[in-house]
Structure formats: C-alpha cells, structure tokens
C-alpha cells in the first residue's frame, strides 16, 4: 500500500515542469558554485576560499561541495513543504483520502517519494557539478589526478553520503512543516526564515544552543562533523528533531478532519 502511495506521488513529481526546474535548477546552481569556486580560487594560501593547491588534493572537491549544503537544504525544504501543503490549498487531499483512507500509509508513501525525488535531483546535480569541476580544474591548470585515487573517491563518496543524509533530513522537516502549517507559501517562508535567520539569532543570543538547533545539526551532518560538534552529535540531535517533527505531522494528519 505504501508502494501504491509512492508510485502515485511519483506520477505527480515526474511532471516536466517540476522535474526540469528541480533537476536542472540544482545542477545549474551547483555548477555555478563550482565555477565560482575555481575561478575565484587563489593559486595558494589559506584564506576564506580554498586555493587551487587545496582543490587539487584528494579531498579538494569535498571542500567545495560541503559549502553548497545550505543551498541544497533550502531547496529540499522548499520542495518538500510545497508538496504536502499544496494538497490542502489545491483541495486534492480529499481525493487522495477517498482512494487511500489509511492516512499514515498515504503520508509515508508521499514522504518516501519526495525524499527519493530530491535525492535523485541532488545526485544528478552532483554528477553534473563533478564534470564541471573537472573542466574548470583543467581550465585553471589544476591537476585532478588526486581526486581519482582511492582516498580521493572515498572522501568524495563519504561527503556526498553525508550531504544526502542532511538533504533527506531537510526534506523530512519540510514535509512535516508543510503538513502542519497546510500552506505552501507560509511553510516555505517559515522554514527558510528559521534556517537562514532565526537559528543564527538564537545562537548569537544564547551561544550554548548553537550545537542543539535543527538546522545547525543538519549542517554538522552535511559537513561530516566539525571542529565543534562531532558528526555523531549532529546526527543524534538532528534525528531527535526529525522524529519529533514526524510524530507531530503523522499524529495530526491521522486525526484531523479534512475540510479543505
């Protein structure tokens, strides 16, 4: 039954406008990020931007991709929130529930479909950005041989895995917030304001909370751990937030009257 809800959701997700805008949009954004990274990189040094020397190392690409996590997270959150909230604004939820009255099955199938969709878009963007990075590296006369060593590929896949985990987390948060707020616009605005602004303000006012906020925890997961909080700390804190968000979303959805 969850599979039926999953495939039904994919019928909607694979529509050309959403598919192209998400896959190509993310790929273009990631490519633009890589182009900027290489074009602005100094030959050597340890400034704010990684140098060409650093980029040529086995983990050179990882330095680049982890910096794009915030963008990926925002996109994932926005798409996911819109997918659940729009069922209310369009009034389509009542149609869905007549065909699948088991609400938890419906929502879980939908969530799995949206997360899969976003992860595929992320993978596509990663592949495109990787190709662009090779081209840019050659354009800046930077060796890429270290990237293809066992260490280099291992670091890259590990970083991509961490980012994929964080992107899935942002997607779950988006799905849950969209479900709870029932308005795509409101959910996206609230989510983005939280990720971009509110967490930073809270962390500045009460610095001890910095490692315990959902966005910061997902950022820690995406970067594979930082000098501050470790990967496992970020993972556990993020998981707690996600479980609470999921329980709240599923709980309210299972019981709420559908009047939309």
């Amino acid at each position, binding site marked *: *039954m969850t599979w*039926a*809800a999953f*495939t*039904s*959701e994919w*019928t*909607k997700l694979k*529509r050309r*406008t*959403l598919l192209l805008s998400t896959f190509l949009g993310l790929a273009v954004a990631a490519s633009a990020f890589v182009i900027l990274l290489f074009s602005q990189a100094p030959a050597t040094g340890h400034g704010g931007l990684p140098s060409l020397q650093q980029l040529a190392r086995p983990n050179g690409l990882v330095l680049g991709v982890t910096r794009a996590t915030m963008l990926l997270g925002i996109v994932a959150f926005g798409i996911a929130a819109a997918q659940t909230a729009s069922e209310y604004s*369009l*009034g*389509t939820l*009542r*149609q*869905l*529930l*007549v*065909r*699948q*009255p*088991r609400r938890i099955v*419906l929502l879980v199938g939908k969530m799995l479909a949206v997360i899969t969709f976003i992860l595929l878009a992320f993978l596509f963007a990663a592949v495109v950005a990787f190709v662009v990075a090779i081209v840019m590296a050659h354009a800046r006369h930077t060796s890429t041989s270290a990237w293809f060593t066992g260490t280099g590929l291992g670091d890259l896949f590990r970083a991509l895995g961490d980012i994929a985990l964080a992107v899935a987390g942002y997607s779950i948060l988006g799905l849950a917030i969209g479900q709870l707020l029932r308005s795509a616009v409101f959910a996206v605005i609230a989510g983005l304001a939280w990720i971009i602004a509110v967490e930073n303000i809270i962390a500045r006012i009460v610095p001890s909370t910095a490692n315990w906020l959902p966005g910061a925890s997902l950022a820690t997961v995406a970067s594979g751990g930082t000098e501050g909080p470790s990967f496992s700390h970020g993972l556990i804190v993020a998981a707690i937030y996600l479980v609470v968000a999921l329980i709240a979303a599923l709980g309210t959805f299972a*019981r709420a*009257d*559908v*009047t939309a």
Partner: protein
Amino acid sequence: MTVTQAMRGTGEASGIQLAVSTTGLTKRFGDRTVVDHVDLAIPAGSVCGFVGPNGAGKTTTIRMLLGLIRPTAGSGSILGGSLTEPASYLRKVGALIEAPAFYPQLSGRDNLKALARLGQLNLKTVEPALARAGLAARAGDKYRSYSLGMKQRLGIASALLPDPELLILDEPTNGLDPAGIVEMRGLIRSFADDGMTVLVSSHLISEIEQICDYVIMIRGGRLVHQGSVADLRATQQSDVIVAPEHDADREQLAKILEAAGCTVTARPAENGVLVETAGLSAADLNRLAANNGITLRQLAEQTRSLERAFFALTGTDEAGLRPGQEMGAIK
C-alpha cells in the same frame, strides 16, 4: 447488506437492502452542531437526492460518509462496512466532493492515473472512465486548461475509477451551463441504470426532482424527511389553478374560495388564482364556483414541487431562509 429493521423516520417496510445507513450521526465543531443525530437509510440501487439549503450540513455528512471528517457521535454502515473503518468500503465507492480538485499541471489522464495508482486500481480503468464522462478527446490536455464543465467531467471520471457500487456526487451541477446540467442528469441516470447506488446532493431541489427516485431532506443539520419521491408527492396536497370565464369574477371567486378555507394566490398569467385546496377536490371547487354563479374557464390540478414540499415539511418558506441559504430552482 440487508437491514431487517424498518427504515427510520419513513415507516417503510423492513428487509430493504440499504447501501448507506446511519444512526444518530452527529458532527460538532466546537459548540456548533453542524449535523445533528441524522439517521440515513439509502436503498441500494436508488438515485437518492440529498437536498437542503446551503449550510444545511450536506457536505459535512458526505465527508463523514467518506471518512474525511470524524463523527462526534453516531454509527453507520456503508456497503456493509463500518463507518469507523472507511478502508473497508471505500474501494467500492466513487466520490465527487464539492468542486473538483486536481493537479493543474497534470493532464486529466495523468491526474486519474495518480488516483488509480494510489487506490491500487487497474490503470486500464482510466480510459473507460474518461470516455464515460465524455472527456476522452481532451484527456491529454493539462487540467488547468479545462473549462468548468470539463473539470466537473474529470471529477465524475475520477469517481468512476473504482467501478463503484456507491457513487457520491456533491453538487455535481455546480457551475454547469443549462446544456451541461441536462447532460449531467442523463449521466447520473445512466449510472443508476448500471446498478450503482447514487447519492447526489444539491441545494437545487428541482434538479433532484428530475433525476432521483429517493430523497433525503436536511435543514439546520437535522433530517427533515427521507423516503421515495413518489411517496412524498402522494402525501402532499395538490394545488389547483382556477380561472373564471370572465376576468371580472376573479375577485369574487377568490373570496368564495377563501371563505371555504382555501389559501388563494393571484396568478395574473392565467387570469386566475392558485388555490391551496385545504382538502377540497377540484370537483368541490367547481361546485362552489357554479353555486355562486361563476363559470370556470380553467380548472387545472398541479402536483406540488419537491421545493414546496420541503417548505411544507419544515414549516417555512423561502423568505425564512438566511441569506446564502437559498433553495434555488431551475424551472
């Protein structure tokens, strides 16, 4: 299912097979009671009209039958499944609830495919449903490009997807032009001919009158009446249009009839009066007129419309409805 008890509130015989039955169905939102102890008994195979003014509780009742709204109290059975377990009967139910709602960027066909997949229905049901609703030619177009009538047709097609035993249509003629309304009537009758039970709600009683053989009347969340349309008509007094041969006698004729206990309303179009007979037959009226030296040019019995029956049953008239509650009629 076979319900062996008498149909509540109707006094109809026992043993009638019911597609829908509810007992004490109630829905309260806060301290506002929207549906108040409604006992429904819809015979299987009937085309059942569900009528009442806007805000009477029709849509809330339908949403409770479809598991979208949780009843505050009461119980029910739909196609043999319990109202508390919508999954046990919704596979056999098709529904169009209020305005049709679909994904604007998807074609009509893809919208139906998404619903068919969700309901684990065979995708081969999509094309016949589109054809039956008269939308096959435009099925590949995006939903956002559809006219209101086409959107309504897609709603009907989606309701037909599970090859339903029970079809619930909430205000299916909303927004349709007169030709579309006539077409929708034919479509609804054809569903009944195929053996489906059809529950069709409308605030247009004249609509229901033309397509239904069973009627449920609701007002202020309470059941006013349910039973066959024929039985309802049989219980209603008929009206008679009476026109004197000479127009000058009209006023005197009205006074004579009022004196006999009738309610008389002028009918300028017929140069006569409309008489609510208070138990008198047409022959009695003719005799009264003749005894007073008035010859009648017209004596035409009229069956009361369901609309008038509704007002008679509720003891109100159209003026008694709140704004927005109009019992509209297309004559």
